[in-house]
Each structure stands twice: as structure tokens, then as C-alpha cells.
């Protein structure tokens, strides 16, 4: 009721524009907002533009003052250098990331299913343990894992990095899959039992297919976590045999201090998975970023 009074009180005649004009005003304001948004985007994405710009410039242009704002003499020369120096590291990262995603899903899918659909007393303690696990700073994990991997003679192996990177991915994968599998109707699961299916069979033929999107999201993010890992790569490897691309890029800066176009080209190559995922799997990415964080 008070709303009606408020409306009458605030109804200033000047606001009551002609409907058509009002529509035109709104549209103009819409485009003004788009222009502002583009400007914001330009500022925030400038570093990425700069990376691509530098990666395409020939070495002699890098020393120019002021720097070239656009790669006028664009060349792919730096990419050749980057690939020959860091191609192996890219491959290592690919193997580690795929391995991490696979391991994380193998652990997370049955766990999430059990936590979401089977009444287990252990569910709550495990949920709590995983929430706490995500809070542990990686430097602590690196410190302890270095000792543990040394003990089991696993330093400088792909396996050590897969296991270490999985500590970044498993809690996230379990939590996101559990959040999804809770919404799978109990009746659907129970009707499978009634039909005589075992729990494993139900998971495989009912829950996994229904949860496909969530599984893809969990897998993609596990991949990205492993791909982006730097700390474990830096600490658990001491030779160049299994250097992931992040560590490769880091040592590239030190080794070729002046070769910044090569460094930037390596950066572009290291960004490809994220870029591909953003284009190919945009809706999964959006789901993963919010992680179902905010209740709708």
C-alpha cells in the first residue's frame, strides 16, 4: 500500500517521457553502457594483448622506446624458438594434466555418488575434511610432498606431479559433483535398485550419464588446475626431464633474459588450453567458476 503512495509522491511529470522517446533513450543508454564495458575490458585484458603483441614482434623491435603498440612486422619466429625450447615441457604438462583429471575423476565420481545418494555416516566427516583440505596452503603440501616423494624415490617423475596436482583437484571435483548428484532424483536411483541393479551398476548406467555435464566441468577444471600448477612443478622436479610448461616458462625468463618475444610466445602457447576451453566449453566453464557457489 505504501508503495502506491510512494509512487504517487515520486511521480514527477518530467519522467513521463513519450513511450517511443523513452525507448530510444533506453537504447542509447544501452549502447553507452556497452561502450563503457568495452573500455573496462580493454584495460583488464591489456596484458593479454601485450603478450600477443610482443610475441609477434621481431627481437629488434623489442628494444624500441616507446614500444611498438602493434606488431607491424609480425613474425612467427618467436614461436619457432618457443616450440623448440619448450615443446617438450608442453607435452609433459599435457600428460600430467590428463593424468590428474583422470585420477581426480576416478576418485571423485564414486565418492560424490556415495555422499549424495547413499546414506553414509562418513559423508559429513569426509565433506569437512575436503573443505579443510582446500584451505591448506600449497607451500605446506610442497614441503611435505618433497620429503615423501624423495622417500619413495618419486622425485622427477610424472607420477609425482600427477599425485601432487591431484591434491588441488580432488576436493574441488568431489564437492562440485556431490552438489550436482544431490539433485539427481532419489526415485530415479531407487527405481534402478528395484529393477535389480547393483549400486555400481546404478552409478554407471544412471547417475554418470545424468551427471555428464558436472563430470565434464570437474574434469576440465582438474585439467586446468594441473596445467596451471607452478609450485609443485618447481619443487618436485630437480632436472629438466619432467619440467612442466609453467616451470619451463619461468626458467625461460632467466635463461634468455633479452628474448622476451620467445618468452611471450611460450606464454601464448601455455594459454592455449584455457583459451580452447573457454571457446569450446563455455557453459561448463561458467558452471565451474561459480562452482555452484551462489545459491540461486
Amino acid at each position, binding site marked *: 500500500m505504501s508503495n502506491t503512495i510512494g509512487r504517487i509522491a515520486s511521480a514527477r511529470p518530467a519522467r513521463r517521457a513519450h513511450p517511443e522517446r523513452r525507448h530510444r533513450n533506453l537504447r542509447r543508454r544501452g549502447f553507452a553502457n556497452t561502450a563503457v564495458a568495452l573500455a573496462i575490458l580493454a584495460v583488464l585484458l591489456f596484458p593479454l594483448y*601485450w603478450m600477443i603483441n610482443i610475441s609477434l614482434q621481431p627481437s629488434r623491435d623489442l628494444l624500441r622506446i616507446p614500444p611498438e603498440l602493434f606488431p607491424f612486422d609480425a613474425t612467427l619466429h618467436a614461436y619457432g624458438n618457443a616450440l623448440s625450447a619448450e615443446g617438450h615441457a608442453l607435452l609433459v604438462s599435457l600428460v600430467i594434466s590428463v593424468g590428474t583429471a583422470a585420477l581426480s575423476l576416478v576418485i571423485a565420481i564414486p565418492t560424490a555418488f556415495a555422499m549424495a545418494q547413499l546414506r553414509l555416516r562418513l559423508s559429513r566427516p569426509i565433506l569437512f575434511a575436503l573443505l579443510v583440505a582446500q584451505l591448506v596452503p600449497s607451500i605446506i603440501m610442497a614441503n611435505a610432498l618433497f620429503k615423501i616423494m624423495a622417500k619413495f624415490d618419486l622425485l622427477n617423475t610424472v607420477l609425482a606431479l600427477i599425485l601432487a596436482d591431484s591434491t588441488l583437484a580432488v576436493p574441488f571435483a568431489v564437492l562440485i559433483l556431490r552438489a550436482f548428484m544431490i539433485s539427481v532424483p532419489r526415485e530415479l536411483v531407487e527405481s534402478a535398485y528395484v529393477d535389480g541393479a547393483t549400486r555400481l551398476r546404478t552409478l554407471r548406467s544412471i547417475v554418470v550419464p545424468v551427471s555428464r555435464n558436472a563430470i565434464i566441468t570437474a574434469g576440465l577444471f582438474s585439467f586446468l588446475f594441473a596445467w596451471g600448477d607452478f609450485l609443485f612443478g618447481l619443487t618436485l622436479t630437480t632436472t629438466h626431464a619432467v619440467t612442466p610448461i609453467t616451470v619451463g616458462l619461468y626458467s625461460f625468463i632467466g635463461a634468455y633474459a633479452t628474448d622476451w618475444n620467445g618468452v611471450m610466445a611460450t606464454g601464448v602457447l601455455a594459454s592455449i588450453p584455457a583459451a580452447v576451453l573457454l571457446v569450446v566449453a563455455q557453459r561448463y566453464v561458467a558452471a565451474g567458476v561459480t562452482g555452484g557457489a551462489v*545459491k540461486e
Partner: protein
Amino acid sequence: MKFGFILPVVVYVLAFFVYPLVQNIVMSFENFTATSFYTGRAPFVGFGNYSAVFQSPQFANAVEVTAIFVVASIFFQFTIGLALAVFFSRHFPLNALLRSLLLVPWLLPLVVSATVFRWIFNAENGVLDQLLQSLHVTSQPIYWLVNPSWALVAVIIVNIWVGIPFNMVILYGGLQGIPVSLLEAASLDGANAWQRFRHVSLPLLKPVTTVVLTLGLIYTIKVFDVIMVVTQGGPANATQTLTIWAYNLSFINFAFGQGAAVGNLLIIVALVFGVVYIRSTRFVRDGAVSL
């Protein structure tokens, strides 16, 4: 039988979280050095590592740097993220596309972003010093990464840049959850845009704000990649946070026991904020944590 589904994760948590954390506590009471790896021996030293850490002149410095880094990063990440979230709540052409492009910085490996910034801040050919001079903001280069006080500002800027998308996305989601009817009612009652934001949106956003801020704290304390790539904790320890110090102690000085001690201090801080976070998650679904 049911237990079979959960067995892998139980083994996993024990092997990859409990065991390392216990190892780290054990190490923090031992004189664990590089030779310990060969001899297998690390003498028990009680609280020796902890007192060495507390007595080190680097301790106060690391605490101060960490505090400045965390507070400044979070303040700006949050305010800029919130401003962007409010802005993108408007309806305009290309909104969804531009919003998803803003996520790109968040998806890139941190090492890549940090590397680019290192070149942007570079003294000789860095584009930022060039830009500031050509705009006559400064008359000579700042030498961002060489000057101790500006180096800290530089790593904070990079970290803010990295954190904006996360803050924006979560706060945007929170804003979308505010019933339009409430905002309309306020507007009919004569509230202007600022009043609507201040007295309707902001109070209703509080649960989301709590989550974003506590998660922000937890992540920012952990930050390693950005600082390591941009400054390595230098110049003259000006950007050496507790995390970087723990790394340096263990993996540069090979004083693993002291590194473990600093790490355990960090874990206490993280867990305190973690409790706040977990208590506030009743407003929020799980899964948000590892962003």
C-alpha cells in the same frame, strides 16, 4: 558394501592430506636439511625451528609484507569486483559475452599472467613506465621491480588483477539473487540508485560478501606464483610474504625444518579464516572453495 564407494577417497585423504600434514609437523621439530635426505637422519630439536623463525629479523618483515599484501589486494579486488558486478547487472547489448571475456585472466595459468606483468613493469622497456612518462604522470621511470616500495605495489597490482574476475563473478551471482521486486519497491518509495544499492542490495549481499572476503583472505595468504615470477620476493625481501619465505627456507636454504615451521604458522592463519568460511557456507553451496 556401500563403504566401497568411499574407500578410495578415505585412502586418498589419509595418504595425501593427513600424512603430509603430519610429516610437516614432524619436520618442524627436526633439524631437517639437505643431508637428511641422504643420511635419513634428522635430529629432534624441539621448538628450535620455531624459535629460530621468530628470532629471525625476516619474520617481522614477512608478517608486515603479508599483511599489506593481503589487505591491499582484497580491498581493491573486492571493491573493483563489486563495482563491475553492479555495472554488469545492467541490461545492455553484448553484456553476457563481455562478462565471460572478463573471466579470461582467471583461467590463464598464473605464471603466464605474472610473466607478462614482469615485462610490463620492466625498467628499460616496460610499457607502464613508458606510458606514465608520456602522460607526464612521472618525469622519470619508477623502476617498479628494482625499487623496494614500488615492487610491493607492483605485485599487489598483479594480484588485484588476478582476483577481480573471481570477485566479480561471485558478487554478480549474488546480485542476481536479490529479488527485483525489493529493488522496485525501494525505487517506488523514492530511493535513488545509490540508496537502493546501499540500503537494499548491500545488506542482502552480506552472506555472499562474507564468503568472497574469507575465500579471498585464504587464497591471498597462499599466493606464491605471482610473487615468485614477478619479484622472487625481492628486492631486498621487500615482497617476501610468509609463503615465499617458507619456500626460500626449504627450497633455497634447504632448512626444511624451518620452512615447515613457517608453513605451520600459515596453516593456523588459514584455518582460522577457514572456520569463518565453513560457518558461512550454510548460505552457499559447496564447491566454491577451490576457486
